[in-house]
């Protein structure tokens, strides 16, 4: 290990003139960034980590138990461990879900019968079921699945929207715990209102997969 290099890096990282923060971030993360000591500490930690082999860092960090494990994942992966945005559907749950839904069984029940149950049937049903599970736009569902009952499709679209809205509500409650400054509170509320408004237009995967959506979720994750 380059001790001199590490020591110099720490000194450099913790110099006060290196702690300038863009005001726009202060609005977003007031509690973290208003605390100069935390900034200085994290800068020092980053400098130390740069000079120590990853395997050596892993031992003490993981020694902290679960908190350490999550910290390590952040260090190792540079982001929260949540790569699987859409969990894969599990085939037997898919099959039974179709069978216990009268409308879907009426139209797709043939595919879940024992002699028809194969990869081809799963692939076909997976697309239908995922559309009905995630799309929030009734018109799009109606256009794609004209064979299904209109009232049923409306119900699915509403349910999908409700699930998204409930999650936003939960986020909102979490944010209320940290948004102590009125100005920040107002910014957060406006952002959440914006997200609520785009739900009806969230009619394909592009919105979920867009960089803007990722950034927004990441931002909320950082705050809470």
């Amino acid at each position, binding site marked *: 290990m380059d001790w001199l290099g*590490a*020591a110099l890096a*720490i*000194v450099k990282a*913790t110099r006060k003139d290196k702690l300038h923060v863009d005001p726009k971030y202060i609005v977003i993360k007031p509690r973290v960034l208003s605390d100069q000591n935390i900034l200085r*500490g994290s800068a*020092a*930690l980053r400098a*130390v980590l740069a000079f*120590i082999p*990853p*395997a*050596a860092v*892993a*031992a*003490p*960090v*993981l*020694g902290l*138990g*679960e*908190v350490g*494990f*999550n910290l390590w*994942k952040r260090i*190792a*992966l540079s982001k929260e*461990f*949540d*790569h*699987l*945005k*859409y*969990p*894969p*559907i*599990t*085939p*037997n*749950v898919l099959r*039974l*879900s179709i069978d*216990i839904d009268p409308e879907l069984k009426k139209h797709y029940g043939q595919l879940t019968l*024992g002699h028809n149950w194969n*990869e081809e049937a799963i*692939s076909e049903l*997976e*697309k239908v079921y*995922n559309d009905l*599970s*995630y799309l929030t736009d009734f018109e799009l569902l109606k256009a794609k699945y004209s064979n299904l009952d209109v009232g049923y499709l409306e119900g699915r679209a509403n349910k*999908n929207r409700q*699930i*998204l809205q*409930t*999650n936003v509500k*939960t986020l909102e409650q979490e944010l209320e715990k940290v948004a102590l400054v009125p100005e920040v509170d107002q910014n957060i509320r406006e952002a959440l209102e914006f997200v609520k408004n785009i739900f009806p237009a969230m009619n394909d*995967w592009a919105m*979920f*997969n867009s960089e803007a959506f990722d950034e927004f979720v990441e931002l909320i994750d950082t705050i809470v």
Partner: protein
Amino acid sequence: MRKIFSLFLLVVGLVSACASPKLPTPFAMPNLVKANEEALLAWNACAMGPNYWPGKAGCDVELLKQKNEKAQAAAYEFIRGDPAQPQGFDIYLEQVLISFRIKHEHLTGNDFIEKERIAEQFFETQQATSGRSLINASYLFTLIAAEGASYQFYNDRSALTIERRATLLKAINAGAGAFNLVTPERNRRLRDALQVLEFIVQYINSTL
């Protein structure tokens, strides 16, 4: 400056103290992270939104299976090494969900039981300690139990006994506790799993 140097010495001390051969698991961590990353890359190459798409350009199904198995094996070493710690459980169980989708034709009843046992262990450990991964553990336990129970519903109904009902009720309670606390995409899966589990519990009740 003196404080910073003390902090630095403390970090170095911790590194030296903890980097002893008595703790072999942490040193395997980079391998596990790498195996997991490779498996997820292979999965993403074969996924289109929420759909598995083996025909997608760039998708190599055999590679995906290999990487998935490798990541599961690496995570299992962590679980075996120290079952009291959550290290490895989440990676293992996330990879298990992928394996359910890509290897469903080759899975047997015993495979489901084994995976469910590990998911239940993760949930119980987290519940007992009020661990920070409790929501994730609840979510994974419910999904994996639902898949195993659905498999039994179609292939081995004699396994759906009153004892089995107790485990399924535990999975339902776990899932209900995590509902609305996971991402919207996961919430949908959780909802489906809960619905299926409730149906199977009703089925067991009707056979009593």
